[in-house]
């Protein structure tokens, strides 16, 4: 009941909260945060790169959870929700790759390296691109397609722990974790701006996921309505 009431407030809370947080994030990242001594101003890309990566993990987690719920309950609303969240995850993965690449050029001298973390992130992007393309282009019937896609999404989600652990398991150029450890390796001011940026982008991701899910659910209702109307017309004639 409480969860339903909170979900009912989504349109009133999420858009303004996300908008204000994003403006605050831009101001903090570009003005307030101190300039890093070695990397200089380009280090400020961290404030969009890391939150984008976390937002993509969040969106794909929603896809995976909704896929599991679809397989358990066989209710198509969970399948639509999984699909809505997957597109948001894909956009944030692309933003992670592009902002990382723009950071890499001045720091490493190249836009792209076949580094374990970057490569596994690209694999995540390709996995969920295929997921969304498959949904639009196969001739399988609804239930079969939804089942295949759910299983595929759950397997694809397993790439996320692999991305997270890649910098620990393999030799990599990508910086080691700076926040997800006992003593964060960032000065307090930078740490606060990073945490605020993560919060702001997660809020935006939550808003986008909600929008995506609602659109998919609407599309599904429309398909049902079309089928009913078609059946009624053929009954009359």
């Amino acid at each position, binding site marked *: 009941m409480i969860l339903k009431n909170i979900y009912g407030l989504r349109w009133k809370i999420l858009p303004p909260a996300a908008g204000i947080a994003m403006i605050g994030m831009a101001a903090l990242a570009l003005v307030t945060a101190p300039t890093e001594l070695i990397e200089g101003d380009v280090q400020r890309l961290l404030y969009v790169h890391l939150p984008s990566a976390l937002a993509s993990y969040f969106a794909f987690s929603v896809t995976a959870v909704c896929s599991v719920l679809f397989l358990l309950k066989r209710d198509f609303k969970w399948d639509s929700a999984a699909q809505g969240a997957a597109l948001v995850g894909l956009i944030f993965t692309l933003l992670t790759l592009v902002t990382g690449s723009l950071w890499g050029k001045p720091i490493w001298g190249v836009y792209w390296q076949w580094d374990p973390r970057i490569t596994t992130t690209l694999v995540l992007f390709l996995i969920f691109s295929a997921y969304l393309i498959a949904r639009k282009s196969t001739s399988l019937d609804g239930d079969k397609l939804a089942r295949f896609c759910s299983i595929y999404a759950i397997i694809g989600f397993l790439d996320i722990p692999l991305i997270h652990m890649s910098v620990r398991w393999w030799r990599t150029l990508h910086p080691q974790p700076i926040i997800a450890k006992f003593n964060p390796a960032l000065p307090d001011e930078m740490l606060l701006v990073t945490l605020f940026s993560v919060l702001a982008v997660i809020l935006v991701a939550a808003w986008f996921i909600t929008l995506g899910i609602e*659109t998919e659910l609407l599309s599904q209702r*429309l398909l049902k309505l079309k089928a009913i109307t078609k059946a009624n017309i053929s009954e009359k004639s």
Partner: protein
Amino acid sequence: MSEIGFLFAGFAVFWAGMFTYLVILQVRIRNLQDQVDMLENNTENQNEL
């Protein structure tokens, strides 16, 4: 490109990504709206017949 250039490009891509998603969604919702209108018209025509 200078350091500031890369920083500007990164933030520009980030904001552009956000707006692109909203545009995709708007096109999708408009498409759904058109389909609802079409369905309404079909139903009205059927009722008239």
